């Protein structure tokens, strides 16, 4: 491996084992040094621990749901337990796993490293954000232990305000609290990216992951307060009897849906934009190509973040909304597909004539592209009013949003986790196991959710614990897939834990990647870099500008035990 000075590098990507300061992991071992830390890297780890916990709580609820649905009869759960389980699954997975997943773990860890900063702009606020997240999560889990909630994750009024006798208020308060954690993270990232970029790190030299975090933060800051208000109104109506949406007194329940989806539709982009950022990093690295159309990738991210705010009404076509408004929202929903398609074509363009390697992060990334495309295209079905009226509230919708939120976002999260694992922990993991888990996840996912498209199109409604027997074949396939998927999710928990204890030491840049975060030790020291980084070129410097890789050149072998 040549060690010529890289345009973005500090000096030598090979490990210099002399006079190095201790890593952030070795910088204090007490519980206090973790719980009161202001180091963005440690806060990222704190988040990683809590979201993993929530992931398995939400996953357990989904397991029970899929078990119940294996047969048409209600044999495992009562209707009302079933309602509480899918609500728990939705609430926990959306607000306590998916929303914080990539931004607060990988984003917290990587944004300062990628822009050459020492930390985020407001380190204490960063820690407060974690505590708000944990506090909100505890309230939601407390509601679960006390008896659960049966409204679905959307808390639609008037059911949630007038009729439901479950722990709605407490859950809503938990989500309200965690909303402020999102806002704090958003403010922090925006200020960090604006004000703490290293000398030479201009806006159009930022890695796409940083752009994705920036646009996600915009949505955090501008969408989350509306959710907070919406939930506050539900809380006030339930707890203090202040009627806002009560139709009996002239209130408008559809107004609740407007406010709720003004947040919750952009929330889908909060989940998928970070995933797009991760995948952009992965595909360029493992195709050994500059990203195709960097500036259009940036514009597409910004366009999705902005146009994503104009489309929320497509969740409400059958709610009794005005048909004129429905037409406008339908059109705008088609518009937002354009930048998403640009991104898919650009990832494909990046692969073209690249020296594609199939290491485990790349397998996740390629899985993402396929699943995102399928999820996105079925989104277009749902954006057109006639089709939506046919499949509204069926498993078609369930399948569609799981393709985006689980297929795309979770795949990208796992891809990013595997890619940056050596940097975060300083250890390597068994690559064969990782590849197997990645492939298993792809197949398990499709087996779980593709049959739901068919069942939904044939008319199987969502949110029922029993169903007509003609749908059983699709549900058995889906439940079988869920079992495969569960194994695929548990495997990384096993081998990544193993790698923490017994894994080989990772080198500084095991993938031979070009980003600034690889130009420091694995794991990085508290202050991130030795000296102050200066940036002299654009990102993804995998080959000279304007030159295609030579076709027959053998792929550069990666170092370490990863391949």
């Amino acid at each position, binding site marked *: 491996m040549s060690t010529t000075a890289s345009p973005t590098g500090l000096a030598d990507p090979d490990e210099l084992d002399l006079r190095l300061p201790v890593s952030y992991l070795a910088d204090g071992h007490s519980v206090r040094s973790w719980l009161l830390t*202001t180091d963005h890297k440690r806060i990222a780890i704190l988040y990683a621990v809590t979201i993993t916990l929530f992931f398995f709580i939400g996953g357990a609820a989904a397991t029970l749901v899929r078990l119940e649905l294996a047969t048409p009869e209600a044999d495992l759960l009562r209707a009302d337990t079933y309602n509480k389980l899918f609500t728990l699954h939705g609430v926990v997975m959306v607000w306590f796993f998916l929303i914080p997943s990539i931004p607060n773990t990988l984003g917290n860890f990587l944004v*300062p490293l990628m822009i050459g*900063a*020492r*930390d*985020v*702009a*407001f*380190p204490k606020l960063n820690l407060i954000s974690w505590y708000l997240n944990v506090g909100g999560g505890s309230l939601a889990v407390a509601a679960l232990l006390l008896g659960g909630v049966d409204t679905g994750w959307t808390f639609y009024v008037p059911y949630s305000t007038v009729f439901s006798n479950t722990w709605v208020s407490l859950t809503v308060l938990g989500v309200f609290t965690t909303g402020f954690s999102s*806002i704090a993270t*958003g*403010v*922090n990232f*925006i*200020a960090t990216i*604006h*004000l*703490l970029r*290293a*000398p030479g790190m201009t806006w159009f030299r930022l890695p796409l992951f940083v752009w994705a975090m920036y646009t996600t933060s915009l949505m955090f*800051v*501008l*969408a*989350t*307060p*509306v959710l*907070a*208000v*919406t939930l*506050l*109104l539900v809380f*006030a*109506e339930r707890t*203090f*009897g*202040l*009627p*806002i949406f*009560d139709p*009996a*007194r*002239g*209130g*408008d329940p559809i*107004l609740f849906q407007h*406010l709720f989806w*003004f947040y919750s539709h952009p929330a889908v982009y909060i989940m998928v934009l970070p995933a797009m950022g991760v995948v952009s990093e992965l595909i360029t690295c493992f195709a050994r190509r500059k990203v195709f159309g960097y500036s259009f990738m940036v514009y597409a991210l910004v366009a999705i973040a902005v146009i994503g705010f104009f489309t929320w009404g497509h969740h409400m076509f059958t709610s009794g909304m005005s048909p004129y408004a429905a037409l406008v929202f339908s059109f705008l929903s088609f518009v937002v597909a354009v930048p998403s398609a640009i991104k898919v074509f650009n990832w494909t363009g990046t692969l073209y004539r690249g020296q594609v390697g199939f290491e485990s992060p790349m397998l996740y990334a390629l899985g993402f592209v396929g699943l995102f495309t399928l999820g996105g295209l079925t989104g277009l079905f749902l954006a057109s009013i006639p089709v939506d009226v046919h499949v509204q509230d069926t498993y078609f919708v369930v399948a569609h949003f799981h393709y985006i939120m689980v297929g795309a976002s979770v795949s990208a999260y796992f891809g990013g986790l595997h890619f940056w694992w050596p940097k975060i922990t300083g250890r390597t993991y068994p690559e064969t196991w990782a590849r197997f888990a990645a492939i298993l996840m792809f197949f398990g996912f499709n087996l779980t959710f593709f049959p739901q498209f068919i069942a939904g199109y044939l008319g199987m409604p969502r949110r029922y614990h029993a169903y007509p027997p003609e749908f059983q074949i699709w549900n058995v396939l889906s439940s079988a897939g869920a079992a495969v998927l569960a194994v695929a999710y548990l495997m990384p928990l096993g081998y990544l834990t193993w790698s923490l204890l017994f894994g080989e030491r990772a080198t500084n840049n095991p993938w031979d990647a070009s980003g600034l975060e690889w130009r420091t030790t694995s794991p990085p020291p508290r*202050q991130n870099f030795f000296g*102050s980084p200066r940036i002299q070129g654009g990102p993804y410097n995998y080959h000279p500008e304007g030159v295609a890789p030579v076709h027959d050149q053998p792929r550069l072998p990666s170092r370490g035990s990863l391949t």
Partner: protein
Amino acid sequence: MSRADVEACLREGHPDIEARMREPWSDLETDHATAFARQRDGAAFGIWVFLASEVLFFGALFLTYTAARLANQEAFAAAGRETNIVFGTLNTAILLTSSLTMAVASQAADKGLFRRLTLWCLAATAVFGLAFLVVKGFEYREDIEKHLVPGAHFALSQAPAQIFFGFYWLVTVVHAIHLSIGIALVTRLAVMGWRDVDFLKENPQVEVTALYWHLVDVVWIFLYPMLYLPGRSG
């Protein structure tokens, strides 16, 4: 005050800059004066981003009001007549005046001038804030006596008037919570500034608190025509 000003006046010599630098700004690869100016810019920028978020927070509340009022205009006019315009107008005047003292305090601290003026203005701001809450308390007592709390014993016959008062109670309480946080922040600044002679001088916390205070004032500026002015002419 522009950044160039800050840098210029900082270079004239403030040996205590280093003590005021915070992570990660202290690690910026510039001289201390520039780094300190960027730290101040960062604080102001951060609070503005948060204020943009608050605009959406209150914007959503105002939208709820707007939609409900459009659909129930007569009931809202009848309900609006029941609020006490004297208390409402007095409170608006109090908050507008508190914004004046807050602005003077912030501008004086910004240039590192007139410590006593800054302290007095901060104290006055906190007192005006408390006065607002006291007036609001009297108003709440009157509202409860007039049975203006939505529910079985509500005073007005039109059902949608309950939505108006549902909104009234929610939004005034949310505003009062915001104001109480503001009073706590201003009081903290006043106490710290009184104990430590150099604390307020060029401290970004003053500007941040002031910006937050003004936003709470702006929210009330809109609540005034929403809650107190409907139906007065009818």
